[in-house]
């Protein structure tokens, strides 16, 4: 049975595109047929994160306007051949597409793929409404910050108003050493406030920036703790029960000390 999952947040810049790309990769590596849809019309980025920007011929708006067939617009990933990207149009804006058209497109895609992941733009306007139109469920991305959590709360309300099932939460850019010294909201604080189930925690980590530079999502990297975090989220999304959370270690002062003295390098959270 195939499923469409929208990745949304309200606030901009919290990691929706990074998460969409990496979950796409992780689910595809686990053998599923996956399409990631860039719904950020006018500000496309998912192509760049996946390193597929040079292969775009047609985009989502071309498909919706009947200028090409869906198959012509889908771009196959270079490294995992069950992953495809449907890029956003760069020279149009959100009003080029309606929620009904989006829903039809997603339904068409669900016939071809096990998972269709929609990378939602920031905000609560038309781009958001288009993105949730064809979705069966939603993942909410937040960071451990007041403004991001506030917007996440708003989005959770809108997702529920749209009669989607209860969304699940991804906490991104988590810094254990700041939590340890009481300067960052912990997982339990955030869950108490937002009151939705957690599906994963992604550490704030330079691997994300390095992989974005290269156009090769960190979920491909066997040795990266961030890659492992995404791979575990993918397993949870796929319904695998009891995928353990990796113990969180500080990457602050003491673990840096340990690293300098050759004690096992500290890793972040998953």
């Amino acid at each position, binding site marked *: 049975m195939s499923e469409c999952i929208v990745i949304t947040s309200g606030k901009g810049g919290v990691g929706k595109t990074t998460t969409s790309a990496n979950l796409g990769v992780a689910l595809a590596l686990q053998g599923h047929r996956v399409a990631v849809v860039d719904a950020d019309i006018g500000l496309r980025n998912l192509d760049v994160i996946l390193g597929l920007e040079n292969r775009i011929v047609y985009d989502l708006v071309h498909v919706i306007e009947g200028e090409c067939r869906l198959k012509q617009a889908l771009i196959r990933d270079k490294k995992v051949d069950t992953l495809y990207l449907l890029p956003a149009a760069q020279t149009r804006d959100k009003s080029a597409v309606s929620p009904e058209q989006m829903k039809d497109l997603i339904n068409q895609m669900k016939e071809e793929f096990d998972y269709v992941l929609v990378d939602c733009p920031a905000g609560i306007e038309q781009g958001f409404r288009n993105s949730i139109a064809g979705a069966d469920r939603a993942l909410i991305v937040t960071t451990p910050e007041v403004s991001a959590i506030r917007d996440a*709360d*708003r989005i959770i309300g809108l997702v529920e108003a749209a009669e989607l099932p209860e969304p699940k939460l991804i906490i991104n850019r988590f810094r254990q050493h700041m939590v340890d010294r*009481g300067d960052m909201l912990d997982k339990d604080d955030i869950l108490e406030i937002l009151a939705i189930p957690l599906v994963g925690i992604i550490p704030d980590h330079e691997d994300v920036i390095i992989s974005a530079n290269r156009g090769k999502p960190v979920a491909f990297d066997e040795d990266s703790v961030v890659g492992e975090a995404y791979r575990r989220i993918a397993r949870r999304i796929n319904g695998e029960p009891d995928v353990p959370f990796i113990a969180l270690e500080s990457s602050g002062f003491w673990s840096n000390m340990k690293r300098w003295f050759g004690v096992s390098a500290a890793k972040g959270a998953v």
Partner: protein
Amino acid sequence: MSFFSRMFSNKGSKDDAKARLKLLLVHDQVDLTPAQMEAMKAEVIEVIGRYVEIDRDSIDFKLERSGGDVALVSNVPVRRVTARAV
């Protein structure tokens, strides 16, 4: 906060973040202005005051949220239960 004052204070900024968020989310959801909250508080206190003698200076009156539900939480210290006329 300097390194040393942080070393010696056990309260990080996270407590501020949490308290502010809780208040923020309740008011995002309920959409009452601070003036309306004050007016409601004054009226409620007025009604309670007709039945019991209360300590008006130490009244706690706020909206709180746990999970998705909002509750009006109030703590009104009673000095003396009077049998005043209603």
